[in-house]
């Protein structure tokens, strides 16, 4: 695993997230569920807790955008770049952007599974860099996995716990 060079981690454990808009590829309930489960993956192994808000600025702002969305990292149309997220810092830090030129799916192995893409991006939102372990969620290329049985790899768990420690509730 790898973390961003510098002190990129949240100084608090209670974080907020907000879904600013939706992709037309899935129902709103499916997007909500995918995002919630993606964050829960990280909450299960750390002291981090996530609360959804519906207005104002959240720590993790989530949006579906296309092309040049004015953050200096334009998307490139279908395939190629699927999404990106910023490491923890004030302002745009923690925010996750999904390329809405992609076809996102809820459970189907076709297209890109939003839960898997979001879980990867939230790893960045929390301070993890890309891993060189091909079995890790934080590996940079997309691989479909069975979302019903999906669990973080030991590499991902070690990475996030190096920043925040383990979940003391379990």
């Amino acid at each position: 695993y790898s973390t961003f060079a510098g002190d990129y981690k949240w100084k608090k454990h209670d974080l907020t997230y907000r879904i600013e808009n939706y992709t037309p590829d899935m129902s709103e309930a499916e997007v909500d569920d995918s995002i919630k489960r993606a964050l829960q993956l990280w909450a299960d192994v750390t002291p981090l807790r996530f609360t959804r808000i519906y207005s104002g600025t959240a720590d993790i702002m989530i949006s579906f955008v296309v092309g040049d969305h004015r953050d200096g990292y334009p998307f490139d149309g279908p395939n190629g770049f699927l999404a990106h997220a910023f490491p923890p810092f004030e302002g745009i830090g923690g925010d996750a952007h999904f390329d809405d030129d992609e076809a996102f799916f809820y459970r189907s192995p076709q297209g890109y599974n939003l839960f898997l893409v979001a879980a990867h991006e939230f790893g960045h939102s929390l301070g993890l860099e890309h891993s060189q372990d091909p079995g890790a969620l934080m590996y940079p290329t997309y691989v479909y996995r069975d979302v019903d049985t999906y669990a973080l790899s030991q590499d991902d768990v070690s990475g996030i716990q190096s920043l925040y420690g383990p979940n003391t509730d379990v």
Partner: protein
Amino acid sequence: NPIAPSADEDRVRIAENYLTSLYGLPKQGSSGTERRSNALSLRLKEMQQFFGLAITGTLDEETIKVMKKPRCGVPDVAA
């Protein structure tokens, strides 16, 4: 009719886009051809090292295959 780019031109375009976005390769500008080629080779080696590919600094099939895979747009700076 416009002339379609050759396969080689297409590979170089893919590699340049990839390395510019993710490995800090400067955008094509006033730098000389040789300097550009050296910069491209250096970034290619970084990318190949990250993905555990043969570190050749040249655009081989395996490298292009990895570049064409869908991926996260955050740069791989760990290597």
